[in-house]
């Protein structure tokens, strides 16, 4: 608490703001600046690699096109994220309470994990058609495994003495789960969910490459074929902003729910 008090001085606050936002911004601006300069100095043709300024202009000019396509990808990525993580959480709960079930199903989960997502995507498009379904399933598959592994670890990461405490208190199995195992698994779960945000966007885009007539993945394929490099880069930027937005939503949710951890490591 003494550390928090020291932060409250105006000088400390400015220093903290610079550390939190100033330094990361400096890193990004340096790279963008070099990129712009390099392309102008060495006259790199725009169809090979546009400078950041041109990408920004394209973003504005092509915004109606981008806007039309981003919605599809959001639905697929978020749908896959929710589906994959829901299945992973339920399976983890099942595994922790039923060892034979874990022995039976965990190898299946590993097998699913080892199939490259790019290889399985065409199969799923064949099976599920051209609509949302295969994209959602692929996004779900890609975000499923890290959550399963982390959630199982989280549910098991309970101290022996905490279990003994529950025994002394004559807690029921349900009480042990809801009052002990589930809350103590949340930091593990959120670590996995953060990984899953970026993965689910990747899954949705890869699925759109295989067969789609809308979405950011579709736009990437089309703009590459048509040599609209500016649009390609703008789409890529939108895709990465989408992943970032999902990531930040999960971070915000974590801050709301996992309130017991200190913001800064204790000294």
């Amino acid at each position, binding site marked *: 608490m003494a550390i928090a008090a020291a932060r409250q001085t105006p000088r400390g606050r400015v220093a903290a703001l610079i550390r939190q936002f100033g330094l990361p911004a400096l890193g990004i601006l340096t790279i963008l600046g070099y990129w712009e300069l390099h392309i102008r100095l060495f006259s790199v043709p725009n169809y090979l690699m546009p400078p950041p300024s041109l990408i920004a202009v394209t973003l504005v000019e092509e915004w109606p096109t981008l806007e039309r396509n981003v919605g599809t990808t959001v639905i697929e990525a978020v749908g896959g994220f929710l589906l994959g993580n829901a299945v992973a959480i339920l399976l983890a709960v099942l595994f922790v309470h039923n060892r034979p079930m874990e022995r039976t199903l965990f190898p299946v989960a590993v097998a699913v994990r080892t199939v490259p997502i790019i290889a399985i995507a065409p199969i799923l498009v064949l099976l599920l058609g051209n609509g949302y379904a295969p994209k959602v399933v692929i996004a779900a598959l890609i975000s499923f495994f890290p959550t399963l592994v982390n959630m199982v670890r989280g549910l098991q990461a309970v101290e022996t*003495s905490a279990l003994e*405490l529950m025994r*002394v208190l004559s807690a029921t199995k349900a009480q042990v789960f809801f*009052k002990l195992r589930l809350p103590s698994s949340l930091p593990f779960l959120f670590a996995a969910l953060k990984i899953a945000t970026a993965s689910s966007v990747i899954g949705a885009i890869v699925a759109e490459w295989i067969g789609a007539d809308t979405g950011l993945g579709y736009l990437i394929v089309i703009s590459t074929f048509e040599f609209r490099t500016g649009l390609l880069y703008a789409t890529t930027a939108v895709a990465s902003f989408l992943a970032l937005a999902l990531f930040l939503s999960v971070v915000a949710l974590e801050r709301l729910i996992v*309130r*017991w951890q200190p913001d800064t490591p204790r000294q």
Partner: protein
Amino acid sequence: MSPADPSASRIDLAAIQLEEVGMTFPTSSVPLRVLEAVSLAVRPGEFVSLLGPSGCGKSTVLRLVADILVPTDGRITVNGESPETARRRRAFGFVFQDATLLAWRSTLENVLLPLEISGDASRGRERARRLLDLVGLAKFESAYPWQLSGGMRQRVAIARALVTEPRILLMDEPFGALDEITREYMNLELLRIWQATATTIFFVTHSSPEAVFLSDRVVVLGTRPGRVKLDLAVDLPRPRDPALKETVEFARYTAALRRTLVGETRLE
């Protein structure tokens, strides 16, 4: 300096009674015999310490009384009932070596946990606040465990153990992880709480000065398998003051305990 009369360990209404208790842990190689024919009794309202070198099975004794473990041989009663019945009736509270607070619960919520589990949290809030006041943490009821020092956390654990108003408090080296000064302070606090709540305390420790300072009686456990080596009544005046530790009488008691312990500790 009178060893307790052996016949006195058979009491009609003992708070805790162990008769010829033995415990074997099945391990993968050889079954591990940790306790052999342990008999002892704790009277209602008494403060009894169980002292022994590490690995002698003193924590196991406490876990048998608390029905966390079940003995291989012998009989245990708590308030004349089986440990399981006593546990279901919330006849005892348990304080662990590490405070075992739930990190996502505030101080008050941690103290309320036992009542939530037994289903009377609604009318326990006042009692929980009173107990936090008793352990000197009234101002910290909304703090989280990471914001508390080791000694404060252990005081929350004591309040939590007392919230179901048990007649018996089982304590497993509760101050073992604290520094010397905090430990001395917590010893005084514990005696004050014991006097204020009139509970029976069965206290496991490996420190002979701590055992002598706190207890009415100290039971020394030998090693492998653990058995009772000495049952020593501590006839020192109460309330006890830290200055007591500098007296000759105090030194005599700790010396007697040390001699018994040294005979039991094998240097490996």
